[in-house]
């Protein structure tokens, strides 16, 4: 272990340093609390053995500053106090000191205490490693818990979270946004004719087309079975234009659609657009109604919710 030995008295410091070295550790002697703190901040330090009473920073202050650092690596702190100094020992332990040694430090005592220190720092090291591992997997899990595994788009959880953010930005900064709800036309016949794997593949391909058509600030989610929701920070007219562009791109992608009724042979989508006014449920219902209208007008087209025409065109921030 790397052991910082702090004492203002050079003879005492030498004795402690030699004792530490003799026990197979690396001793880092420091004349003052300030110098010791510098060592802790710049080197890997496992243990500090510090005198209490020193000119300048005391051992207690040193301990408090060592504890105040926001580091996972634990520094085991031993305070050296006079034999009858129960008051300082108590204050030290309360301030984060791990162990108190009585002056003059007996090498055998030091040996025992360093064995304990080694065990405790090893435990902390393993805990730290585990914690870092957990933090890494938490990041991965948080991302995957918000992604639709089939299409790679955001899932409903991610959609709900993001819509909250869009909504609060709209309410606070008057940043308009709108939604476009896409639904693959005659998707059931695709599944029935070509099988669910072909259906899944078509979903993935449509998702890829949508993603390619979006800009950085736009978001896309798998909304339901064959429904995908796109959220764009734009006024409703520009949302409608973007939705129409995406619809055409889906058609142009020429994704085969066997078993489709009518003359068409490729996958197409209908889309309902709504300005995001009021609460989330209201504009999602409006988009759904517009989608229904696009379907009933013959599919492969875009419709804008009636309510959205009454909305003054808000200019979205860039």
């Amino acid at each position: 272990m790397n052991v910082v030995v702090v004492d203002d008295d050079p003879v005492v410091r030498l004795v402690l340093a030699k004792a530490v070295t003799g026990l197979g550790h690396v001793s880092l002697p420091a004349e003052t609390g300030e110098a010791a703190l510098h060592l802790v901040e710049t080197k890997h330090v496992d243990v500090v053995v510090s005198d209490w009473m020193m000119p300048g920073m005391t051992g207690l202050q040193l301990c408090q500053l060592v504890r105040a650092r926001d580091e996972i690596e634990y520094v085991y702190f031993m305070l050296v106090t006079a034999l009858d100094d129960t008051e300082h020992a108590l204050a030290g332990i309360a301030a984060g000191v791990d162990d108190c040694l009585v002056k003059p430090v007996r090498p055998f005592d030091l040996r025992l205490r360093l064995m304990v220190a080694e065990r405790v720092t090893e435990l902390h090291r393993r805990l730290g490693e585990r914690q870092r591992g957990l933090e890494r997997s938490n990041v991965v899990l948080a991302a995957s818990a918000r992604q639709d595994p089939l299409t790679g788009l955001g899932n409903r959880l991610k959609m709900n979270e993001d819509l909250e953010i869009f909504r609060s930005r709209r309410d606070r900064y008057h940043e308009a946004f709108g939604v476009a709800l896409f639904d693959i036309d005659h998707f059931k016949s695709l599944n029935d004719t070509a099988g669910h794997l072909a259906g899944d593949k078509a979903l993935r391909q449509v998702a890829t087309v949508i993603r390619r058509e979006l800009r950085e600030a736009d978001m896309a989610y798998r909304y339901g079975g064959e429904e995908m929701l796109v959220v764009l920070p734009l006024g409703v007219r520009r949302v409608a234009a973007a939705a129409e562009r995406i619809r055409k791109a889906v058609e142009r992608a020429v994704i085969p659609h066997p078993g489709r009724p009518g003359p068409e042979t490729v996958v197409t989508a209908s889309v309902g657009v709504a300005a995001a006014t009021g609460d989330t449920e209201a504009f999602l219902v409006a988009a759904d109604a517009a989608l229904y209208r696009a379907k009933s007008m013959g599919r492969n087209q875009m419709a804008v919710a009636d309510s959205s025409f009454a909305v003054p065109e808000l200019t979205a921030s860039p």
Partner: protein
Amino acid sequence: MRQDRTALARPEGSPAAVDETVIEQLASITDGRGFSVLGELLNAFLGAVPGRLEALERATAGDDLQAVADQAHSLTGSAASFGARGMADLCRDLHAAADKGDAEAARHLVGDLQAEFLGVRAWLMSFRSPA
């Protein structure tokens, strides 16, 4: 072993200058290759103390009681680390006298300390160089 050392170590006239058990503890410190570093430690102690005593003498002569208190405190640690209990006690008394502003007592105690160190040195020298 202990018998031999004790016989060699105790000079006449200073029977309790140094607590031998402390020195035995120090003798157990090795350099990592199994060799005792006691000689090096004793040299450091014996080399450092005279200068410290001189500084104390100057400080008491100049009535710099703050310096006396600081020096006394520091010397307490050194003395205790080498089992020189008498010296450590005198250092504590000196610290207390300096804190109280008693320059006269401080001067006397520095004299006592110098005398005590002579006994400690004799003890340690004989311990260090067994015949």
